[in-house]
């Protein structure tokens, strides 16, 4: 084939251009550690990566849901636990009161129980942030309303509802970190039992005291069961957190597999391209310099 001056030059230019494009691309890949940037680089991989990254965001959200659920359940636990302490003391007083007591002793106990009632009401109406913990999903109303006579609590009613706050921990699992309605109602009953205990002590009524003592034991059982359930929920949330962490690590690996560059391989390729580029430049300089013009005069 006849080679013309333009053919030679066009060849050189296009070869150098090809090589420098390739070189620039490899250089970017090496310096960023990233294989794909735009959808055109590897459309299928970009599609997969977008899905994986979306999955990652979802996992991050589930993780923060789990944190929130754990906080709620821990707050619930500490509330219930404090009430349990009150209940312990109340049972103690009930046992002490069942012995022979003078009316002044009995009234002193009644005064202490009255304090316990106030304390329990406060605990039962405890809040996490601005939200009431023991009222179902009625977060903005105090769940236990007290009726007072001469400043003393005589009755307590439940103002919350039967719903339970629930949070998704994954596509399929949800968790209710706060107490259910039965527990909430048992708190009301516990208050009622405390009132009965106080009134019995106040009047030194031994048969009323015995009834109150038995009722207190019942409501303590419910409290203990709730605490156990709450512990179970926390364990479940923590298990989910571990699972989410594993999934997140797994996803990171997958994304990395799609997006990240195989560094050793790319560096080798870059070196090869550089060599080719240098060779192209050197040889073209030699070819372009030579012309018949140099040899005739």
């Amino acid at each position: 084939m006849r080679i013309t001056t333009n053919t030679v030059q066009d060849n050189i230019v296009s070869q150098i251009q090809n090589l420098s494009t390739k070189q620039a691309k490899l250089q970017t890949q090496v310096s960023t550690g990233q294989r794909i940037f735009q959808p055109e680089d590897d459309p299928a991989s970009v599609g997969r990566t977008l899905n994986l990254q979306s999955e990652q965001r979802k996992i991050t959200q589930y993780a923060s849901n789990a944190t929130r659920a754990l906080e709620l359940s821990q707050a619930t636990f500490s509330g219930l636990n404090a009430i349990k302490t009150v209940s312990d003391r109340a049972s103690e007083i009930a046992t002490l009161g069942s012995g022979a007591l003078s009316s002044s002793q009995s009234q002193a106990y009644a005064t202490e129980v009255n304090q316990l009632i106030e304390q329990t009401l406060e605990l039962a109406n405890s809040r996490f942030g601005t939200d009431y913990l023991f009222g179902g999903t009625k977060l903005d109303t105090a769940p236990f309303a007290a009726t007072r006579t001469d400043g003393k609590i005589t009755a307590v009613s439940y103002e919350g509802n039967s719903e339970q706050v629930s949070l998704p921990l994954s596509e399929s699992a949800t968790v209710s970190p706060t107490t259910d309605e039965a527990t909430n109602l048992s708190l009301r009953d516990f208050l009622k039992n405390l009132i009965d205990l106080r009134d019995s002590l106040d009047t030194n009524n031994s048969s009323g005291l015995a009834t109150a003592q038995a009722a207190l034991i019942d409501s303590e059982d419910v409290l203990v069961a709730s605490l156990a359930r709450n512990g179970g929920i926390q364990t479940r949330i923590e298990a989910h957190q571990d699972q989410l962490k594993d999934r997140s690590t797994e996803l990171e690996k997958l994304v990395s597999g799609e997006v990240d560059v195989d560094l050793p391989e790319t560096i080798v390729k870059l070196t090869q391209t550089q060599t080719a580029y240098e060779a192209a430049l050197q040889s073209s300089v030699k070819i372009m310099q030579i012309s018949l013009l140099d040899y005739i005069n």
Partner: protein
Amino acid sequence: MAGLFATLNSTVKAITAHSAALETTGKNLANVNNTSYARQRVIYGDRGTIATPTGAESLGLEALGVQQLRDQLLDLQVAREISITSGYEAEQKGYQRAQAALGQSIESTTTGTSDSGIGAALDNFFNSFQSLAGSPTSDGVRETLLQNATILTDRLQLADQRLQQVQDDLDTQITTDVSTVNDLLNTIAELNEQISRFEVNAAGTAVDLRDQRQARLEELAAKLPVTVKDLGDGTLQLSAKDTSGVSVMLVNGATVDNTVSFDGTQITAGTPAATLNLASGSIQGSLKAKTGAVQTLRDNLDALAGQLITSVNAAYNPSSVAGGNFFNGTEAGSIAVVGTITSASLKAGDGSASGNNSIALAIAGLASKTFSISGGAAIDGTFVGFYSKSVASIGQSLSAANSRVEDQNNIEELVRKQRDGVSGVSMDEELADLLKFQRAFQASSRVFNVVDELLDTVVNRLGA
């Protein structure tokens, strides 16, 4: 034998012929970088033969004319390949701009999951509803949710506007190309006329005009593919096929029969206007990009936004209360959060209790919901899945266009090389010719000298 004067005469002719050859070589050298130039050669010929008593005798050499080295088939092929290349390139450019308009790039794991693009906005939107479900009374969470919703609608709207702009720009490009095509048709018709006038007596001699016409033909081919027919008198006939396969005459010799025009969707020519069936050229490439992958991407975004509006509204406003929706609008260009929704009025649940999060959970659940077109939805798969597919699809179109352009460039280069092999100027070759013609010139001058000396002898010395 012819007389000395006759020899002197033929030597002059030879010298003239060699000068012409030298001049042509000079012209070839001067055009070494002119890609539309075809190298030229002086054709030598005999001035004639006469009968003399000593037999037939040549009158000597003369330059008959200048010939252009062109292969018409290769010229046509080059024009065809240029047409295909520029078609692919125009398409590629359209897709590149669509990809940029979409603005969805990939960031590496080392820099963390990026928050750019519609994909991230979709996730953040749905995740905000999960946060709302977790803290239905938190003002901060509500603010964040509304912000994320606005970011999502903004990104959808912006992408739609940009893609619309890409399509408008492609229209402008096509309009400009069409007017260039019509200018070129006129220029080619004028060149046809000039060539036919110059070549009345000697076909193929208007070499420079032919160079010009070939260059214009190649420019034309880059915009619009035409069928070229040589009419034999140095002029060309250009035509294009319409969609029913009928040829529409564009240029017939010296006259432009029909011009082309763009009606917004198609390229037409002739009266009555017939839609041209274009297979290559930048006009076809731009049209293809505009109505092809760019439009598909817009349709996909519209479907995505449409489904988002329908599903979120159905979950947010289950009893279809007037004015109770979350999103306004119907498609990507018009999607917006209803203006009356504030962080305080945003509904997390059915309103029965402040902690009820049924609505937030329902909307958050939409993120994982799989839709199907056969089931009456506007999209197939999940929201993010459908979006990823749409991004992959425009990426696929662009990636395919990239490799088509690369392959086609190689083909065009090959054909150009072949043509250069025939028509291109080689500097070394011309320099060799230069020496050759110089020597020939010197030799003829030497003969002239000798004959002159002989004449001197005859005229001045004989009989003295």
